[in-house]
């Protein structure tokens, strides 16, 4: 149904961002926390509109913005992600010299970019969403203005991101030149009819895939990722590791799954993607093994997780992909929020040695981090195990046995570094005096919600899985 209501979630978020940026000008620097609540309210309102639009197939702009159930599911994921990031940033901003008003406004705008990206099958709209997201996230990663590493991260992210953006534009030009249209489906029709694409179109598609791989951080386009994830403020890192990854994978999924069912495409793009998936998993996990900073280790682990997620795309297994993304949101946000809790005014403890003896000093934090790390490693009964299990068994079912074996081997390697942190927390003697400031209720709420998500989805995944299957049955 074509109605203006299709824009409601998007407009609420953008309107919220503008209100926050406007209010910021009238508030004292010392107490800007109400801005965080305004932003959270905007996200909650967007969430309300998402629930209202469920099962209605709304669209607008001549079908260029579609709220089908697949995009609604992902938008809901982004709303939750945005809420987590905002709550993590409330106290963090004041402690680490970050302007809360700018932070909230930019997070909302970036969430709007994610929403645009997943709710269209038109190349131009996807490109605009991607750029709204990118421009906001360059600024977000440099928000700690006095911190050298934060601005270095921003510079690297900006340079590589805009480079990838230019690839996207040129690839788009080539695809437009061969298919004469900016819609996914025209390109797909050319591919599916067996006539295939002209070589120029295939090159264009390759350029677009490379640009999207930059955003998702897939090897060999992942070199920027560890630096950016480490240097960015921790709440922003959570956003960057989950948001662009989920949106990029959703676009890839919409675009590639029909193509990969087709012989000439499957031969070229299927094998290229499988190679990239294997490379990503091993590059991420092997590099994570030798890190001395927990934040950088988690950055590499998030690269490895992109590899597992690509396996689901190659197998064309939508439900497993979305389930993995939801679980990944909870376990990754959880691990990073424990990292954000390890801080006091002006100081963040991220080195592995700072975690020595944490189990005795702060038993609750250590226990939560252990659960998140075990889930990231894929131990039952946490949700991480089920997510990996569904993805890998889906790959085997579709005949990608070698890929599944490689994924299992890669996740075996990952167990080593996740367990290393747990060993440090419980079996090493205290070295430094890492005194942390525990006055941060919003952050502990996030940790609790993530813990709840990881355990609940690990033990009773049925409801969510049924919802996802229902959402994807219509679209694909």
């Amino acid at each position, binding site marked *: 149904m074509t109605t203006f209501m299709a824009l409601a979630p998007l407009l609420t978020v953008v309107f919220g961002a503008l209100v926050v940026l406007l209010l910021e000008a009238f508030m004292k620097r010392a107490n800007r926390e109400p801005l965080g609540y305004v932003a959270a309210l905007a996200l909650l309102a967007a969430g309300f509109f998402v629930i209202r639009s469920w099962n209605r197939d709304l669209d607008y702009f001549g079908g260029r913005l579609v709220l089908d159930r697949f995009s609604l599911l992902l938008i809901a994921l982004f709303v939750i992600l945005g809420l987590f990031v905002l709550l993590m940033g409330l106290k963090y901003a004041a402690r680490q010299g970050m302007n809360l008003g700018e932070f909230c406004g930019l997070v909302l705008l970036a969430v709007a970019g994610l929403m645009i990206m997943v709710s269209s099958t038109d190349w*131009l709209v996807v*490109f*605009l969403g991607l*750029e709204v997201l*990118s*421009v906001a996230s*360059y*600024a977000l990663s*440099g928000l700690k*203005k006095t911190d*050298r*590493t934060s*601005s*270095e*991260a*921003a*510079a*690297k992210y*900006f*340079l590589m991101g*805009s*480079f990838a*953006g*230019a*690839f996207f*534009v*040129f690839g*788009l*030009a*080539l695809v*437009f*030149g061969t298919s*004469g*249209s*900016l819609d996914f489906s025209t390109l797909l029709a050319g591919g599916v009819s067996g006539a295939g694409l002209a070589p120029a179109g295939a090159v264009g598609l390759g350029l677009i895939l490379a640009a999207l791989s930059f955003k998702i951080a897939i090897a060999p386009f992942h070199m920027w990722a*560890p*630096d950016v994830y*480490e*240097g960015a403020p921790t709440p922003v890192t959570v956003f960057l590791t989950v948001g662009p990854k989920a949106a990029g994978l959703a676009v890839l999924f919409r675009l590639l799954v029909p193509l990969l069912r087709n012989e000439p495409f499957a031969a070229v793009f299927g094998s290229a993607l499988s190679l990239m998936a294997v490379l990503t998993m091993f590059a991420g996990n092997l590099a994570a093994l030798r*890190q*001395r*900073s927990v934040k*950088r280790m988690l950055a590499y682990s998030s690269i490895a997780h992109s590899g597992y997620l690509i396996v689901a795309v190659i197998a064309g297994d939508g439900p497993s992909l979305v389930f993995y993304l939801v679980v990944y949101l909870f376990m990754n946000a959880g691990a990073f929020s424990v990292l954000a809790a390890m801080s006091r005014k002006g100081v963040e403890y991220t080195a592995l040695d700072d975690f020595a003896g944490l189990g005795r000093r702060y038993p609750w934090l250590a226990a939560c981090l252990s659960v998140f790390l075990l889930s990231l490693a894929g131990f039952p009964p946490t949700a991480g195990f089920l997510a990996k299990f569904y993805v890998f068994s889906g790959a085997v079912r579709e005949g990608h046995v070698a890929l599944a074996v490689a994924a299992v081997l890669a996740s075996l390697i990952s167990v080593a570094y996740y367990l290393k942190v747990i060993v440090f927390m419980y079996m090493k003697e205290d070295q430094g005096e890492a005194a942390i400031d525990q006055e941060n209720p919003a952050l502990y709420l996030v940790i609790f919600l993530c813990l709840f998500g990881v355990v609940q989805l690990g033990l009773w995944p049925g409801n969510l899985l049924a919802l996802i299957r229902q959402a994807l049955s219509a679209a694909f």
Partner: protein
Amino acid sequence: MIPPPAAFFILAAVLFVLGVLAFFVKKDLLTQFMAVEVMLNAGNLAFLALAKSLGKAEGQVIVLFVITVAAAEAVIGLAIIVLIFRQRKTVQTDELKDLKG
């Protein structure tokens, strides 16, 4: 006489490749950013050439969007480069090495 659209398309492809080369060869943020701008404009030129030869207006519309996006990117990018210059008194990428491991 105006050359045929194919000539413009070839020019766009050459510009794009030059942009990519410059991005990898140059070692300071400002020049690398200019290389990216060359790549974006090569994309624009390619769109215009293809729109002309296909006789479709969409190709010209998208160019307007890309120009807008490039402007937004330039704003944020130059701000970041100024920030880097204030902290380090240089914009050489070789000096950006606080983050590694």
